[in-house]
């Protein structure tokens, strides 16, 4: 547990800590961060996947052909881990179908397709301008209803994070944005620092932390100035300028830089008394509480040398990426093969086609040109140089993880804390043998998850099989018991009525049967004659 007052004291004296490893990739933020966030036309169709966060999806509450307003919820659920999605603009629901997802697999998932009517008619929730007198639960409820999940990248439901069971020492606002190309947080801080401040005030009212720290990387002086101006009259907020190093924006890394305290591997930031929010999330919270607006848009950085005009845009959730590429002047000739990366160069993934929609966690579309995207050299054998271990911000041994992941010795990989890998890509960045290390880790992680799920399923099947066997056995025994009792009862009855009587009956029956057969035989004979 950290002592917030101490931490703030240290930050004010200019003392910061450091995390192990890290890399310094060349900064490319100036490609996109020089122009204001562009407000763009609505696309012809919006593709809204019904699950855009970590957790469970809600059930769809609109039908095909229905007219929806901007900000109208499309899904509902009573499950606390379900965050609703909303219509990003007013229009008509034209289909509910399977559509390629904004996921490395590109596999289709349930998506609501909306045709905008061009009016952008809002359906607002009641404004809670007097949130200071509102109770905590109603604010959390609003955050959930507005569909807010962490906009920094992980997409964890914000209302769950905001309701910790322990007391919070430090509320940390993450304005680091360490990926070398992305500038969406940079621009939102420059242009909307006031609203971010409002969001922080709301969070502060709900969480009641001892201290609030806003952390901005020192390569964003303009954003830093804007935030400073917005918070100038607030003595309770401390602004920390963090040295530029990738991945300083990782939750655990940033806590380590600010407090010197390491979050336990199995634990959460709250275990050391910290809660962290992205600046974009703060903006969205203010929108939801003070303006009654659901989360229907976010800032997306469009960047890369293959774009004519790299920029930041306010993209409606569900906007297919080809619409954004058109706006940014995508020139396919500048690429050897068409390739768009969602997320930054370090942690992003290649999208499968250009109809994939923007979702809540999409912060960047990177379209590199030939020079930026050279041919990948083949992976060469590991030379045991150890650069990866020096670069790992989580203090792991990437080589060991690599051997064991490649050999599918997952228990050994887990013994080296594969789970603690944040997939930041620093190890692959420094590897002189061009080994795509993170690729192996991701593969191993999904395999382990899959195996665990299979194991659980087989356990369940075993239980059901055994229960069934026990039931069948019990049934059989019950049946045998019943037959035995019935037989006994018959025997008894026979004995009671006297043996001769019963024997006579049998004899009589036999005689009857014989007579019947004889009669039949006779009849046959007659017929033949």
């Amino acid at each position, binding site marked *: 547990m950290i002592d917030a007052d101490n931490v703030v004291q240290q930050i004010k004296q200019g003392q910061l800590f450091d995390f192990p490893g890290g890399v310094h*990739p*060349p900064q*490319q933020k100036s490609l996109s961060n020089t122009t204001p966030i562009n407000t763009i036309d609505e696309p012809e169709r919006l593709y809204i996947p019904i699950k855009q966060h970590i957790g469970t999806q809600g059930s769809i509450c609109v039908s095909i052909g229905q007219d929806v307003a901007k900000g109208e919820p499309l899904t509902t659920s009573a499950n606390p881990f379900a965050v609703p999605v909303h219509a990003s603009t007013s229009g008509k629901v034209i289909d509910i179908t399977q559509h390629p*997802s904004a*996921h*490395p*697999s590109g*596999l289709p*998932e349930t998506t609501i397709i909306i045709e905008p009517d061009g009016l952008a008619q809002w359906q607002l929730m009641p404004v809670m301008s007097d949130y200071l007198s509102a109770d905590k639960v109603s604010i959390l409820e609003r955050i959930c209803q507005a569909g807010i999940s962490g906009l920094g990248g992980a997409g964890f439901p914000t209302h769950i994070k905001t309701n910790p069971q322990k007391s919070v020492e430090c509320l940390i606002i993450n304005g680091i944005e360490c990926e*070398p*190309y992305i500038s969406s947080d940079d621009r939102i801080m420059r242009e909307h620092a006031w609203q971010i401040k409002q969001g922080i005030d709301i969070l502060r009212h709900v969480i009641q932390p001892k201290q609030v720290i806003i952390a901005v990387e020192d390569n964003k002086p303009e954003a830093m100035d804007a935030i400073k101006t917005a918070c100038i009259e607030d003595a309770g907020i401390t602004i920390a300028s963090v040295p530029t190093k990738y991945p300083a924006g990782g939750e655990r890394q940033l806590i380590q830089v600010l407090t010197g305290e390491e979050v336990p591997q199995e634990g959460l930031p709250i275990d050391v008394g910290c809660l962290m929010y992205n600046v974009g999330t703060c903006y969205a919270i203010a929108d939801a509480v003070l303006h009654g607006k659901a989360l229907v848009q976010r800032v997306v950085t469009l960047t890369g040398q293959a774009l004519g005009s790299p920029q930041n845009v306010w993209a409606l959730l569900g906007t297919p990426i080809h619409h954004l590429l058109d706006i940014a002047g995508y020139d396919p000739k500048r690429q*050897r*093969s068409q*390739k768009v*990366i969602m997320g930054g*160069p*370090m942690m*992003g*993934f*290649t999208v499968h086609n250009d109809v994939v929609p923007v979702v809540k966690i999409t912060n960047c579309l*990177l379209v*590199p040109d030939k020079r*930026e*995207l*050279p*041919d*990948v050299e083949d992976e060469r054998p590991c030379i045991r140089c150890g650069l990866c271990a020096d670069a790992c911000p989580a203090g792991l041994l990437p080589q060991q993880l690599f051997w064991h992941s490649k050999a599918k010795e997952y228990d050994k990989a887990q013994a080296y804390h594969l789970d603690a890998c944040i997939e930041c*890509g620093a190890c*692959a*960045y420094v*590897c002189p043998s*061009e080994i*795509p290390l*993170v*690729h*192996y880790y*991701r*593969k191993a992680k*999904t*395999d382990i998850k*899959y195996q665990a*799920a*299979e194991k659980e*399923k*087989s*356990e*369940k*099947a*075993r239980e*059901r*099989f*055994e*229960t*069934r*066997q026990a039931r069948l056995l019990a049934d059989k025994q019950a049946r045998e018991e019943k037959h035995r009792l019935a037989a006994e009862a018959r025997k008894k009855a026979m004995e009671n009525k006297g043996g001769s009587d019963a024997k006579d009956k049998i004899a009589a029956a036999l005689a009857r049967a014989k007579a019947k057969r004889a009669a039949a035989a006779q009849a046959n004979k007659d017929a033949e004659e």
Partner: protein
Amino acid sequence: MTLFTALIILGVLALIFGAILGYSAIKFKVEADPLVEQIDAILPQTQCGQCGYPGCKPYAEAIANGDEINKCPPGGEATIKQLADLMGVEPKPLDGDHGVEEVKKVAYIREAECIGCTKCIQACPVDAIIGASKQMHTVIVDECTGCDLCVAPCPVDCIDMLPVKETPQTWQWDLARSADGQLGDIPIKQVNS
């Protein structure tokens, strides 16, 4: 004299230890063979009977008694490897007589054609089919192990075995390279060098 003392002391000690061992043998008696439990935990619990035994537990017992470890097609290579580790024997390729490793499947009843005979319900080893006599039956997809046992008894052939659909949640990263020779999905190293 010394000899007798030694004999007596050792004799008494032997009696004490004997008593302790005898007591613990009763007190800590293991009901089932723990090896069978361990083997059973590795088997995939489809209860399909392709190994020739009526379920996974009986096959586990058979392996413990010396049967081959390569008779389980649903488990495939991975299961054989684990069993080999556990039993201390060399892994063998899957025995083709008992079937081949296939993609995961679940049963699907074409409900319009079901006549409600309950035959599949009786065949299902994990009670994953619900229905009643002369009522339509259906499969609980989450409980179905894909064992195939319900297909043969159906008099109207209305049960299909469908491959389990891959979703973004169950998808696994593939290390294969994409068609253009670029490293599949990870842009690190590609950009910014």
